[in-house]
């Protein structure tokens, strides 16, 4: 039977753990609201942008060529995976899930005999994938100083990708990140960035037979639109990821706080029983001592 002192120490330590998890939960809840707002505020731009791209590509027609970012390099040997995770832990299976999705994707591509390169965004995913795929890493984007301002990072990464693509470093770029469905569900998804794909759910507008006029030319518009489309996709992925991280963190910490509470209850019960048993024992000793006199 564990001693009273030991039990007391354990209760104390679980209590301080609970305080930490509770604090982290509240911080996550507050941050979640902000992150969610930011993610939602950026949605109209992203959807409209997607619609515009969908319209333009539809009017360009299939196989009409167009800029390389849209048409691709004409090959698909070298795949680049951009794996987006969080900078911090303490958020349940959030990072592990994304890393797992990335691993599956890598294995699938390697089984097809493709060359895979990896760019990691966020420290945690890098740590998980390092063990297996360290030699595939070509770049890492550190978001630990980003706070809530992801725009420069998204633009930076977008420009980097465009440059690497133009230099022929890869043929296809895929982004793996956590889609923020709601507070309880975040699903890792893979989204093709280059060659650009117009989303399937984008509404194409019926022009009623009219012909689009472009100013300057269609090709020039696409030329300047596609890099922005790329940046927008990266930015919204970053925002969704940030919201997802906070949501996962909140849920994980809520569970941890509840578990700690249960543990404290059962330990306290054990402690009280032990204390009572000891008192009874002491009383019996005193009484039997007195009787012996």
């Amino acid at each position: 039977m564990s001693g009273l002192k030991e039990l007391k120490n354990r209760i104390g330590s679980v209590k301080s753990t609970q305080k930490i998890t509770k604090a982290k939960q509240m911080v996550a809840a507050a941050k979640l609201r902000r992150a969610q707002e930011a993610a939602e505020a950026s949605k109209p731009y992203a959807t409209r942008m997607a619609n515009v791209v969908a319209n333009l590509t539809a009017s360009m027609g299939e196989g009409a060529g167009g800029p390389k970012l849209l048409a691709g390099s004409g090959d698909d040997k070298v795949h680049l995976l951009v794996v987006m995770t969080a900078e911090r832990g303490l958020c349940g299976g959030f990072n592990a899930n994304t890393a797992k999705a990335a691993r599956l994707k890598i294995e699938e591509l390697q089984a097809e005999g493709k060359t895979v390169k990896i760019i990691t965004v966020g420290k945690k995913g890098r740590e998980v994938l390092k063990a297996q795929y360290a030699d595939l890493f070509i770049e890492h984007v550190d978001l630990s100083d980003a706070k809530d301002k992801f725009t420069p990072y998204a633009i930076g990464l977008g420009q980097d990708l465009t440059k690497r693509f133009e230099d022929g470093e890869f043929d296809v770029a895929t982004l793996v990140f956590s889609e923020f469905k709601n507070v309880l569900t975040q699903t890792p998804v893979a989204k093709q960035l280059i060659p650009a794909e117009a989303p399937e759910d984008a509404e194409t507008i019926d022009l009623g037979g009219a012909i689009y006029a472009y100013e300057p030319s269609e090709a020039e518009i696409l030329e300047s639109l596609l890099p922005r489309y790329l940046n927008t996709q990266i930015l919204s992925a970053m925002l969704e990821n940030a919201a997802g991280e906070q949501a996962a963190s909140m849920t994980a910490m809520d569970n941890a706080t509840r578990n700690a509470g249960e543990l404290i209850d059962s330990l306290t019960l054990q402690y009280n029983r032990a204390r009572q048993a000891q008192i009874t024992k002491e009383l019996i000793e005193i009484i039997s001592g007195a009787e012996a006199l």
Partner: protein
Amino acid sequence: MADKLHFSLVSPARELFSGEVDHVIAPGSDGEFGVLVNHAPFMTTLKNGVVRVEENGETTMRLFVRGGFADVTPAGLTILAEEAVNLDSVSAESVQKEYDEAHRALLAEGKDGPQVHALEEQVAYLESLKAALTN
């Protein structure tokens, strides 16, 4: 009352305006253009400048956009701006302050710093924003 034009202006940060208006005048990269209801499908890139919204022949709102796209479809006009501000919500002083800061940063960066291009763009943007505010 005749039909109205559905106009929305969004920037990556948020949706600045969405609603029905009479007339929108926007700074296309090949020249300023106006859009009324039932305009033919049209798409253009934008340069830095002021988007004016008119109701009954009077300007009701002035929004400053930093580059972007305008897309006119039968459903209405959508402007995707890289950055946009409502001119009624900014003060000349705050813009002047930002401009001074950007200008100082540009001077500090020297001629061949890595940020020169971005800073020059920022200064040009703030300069035209300042000009838009004063008239």
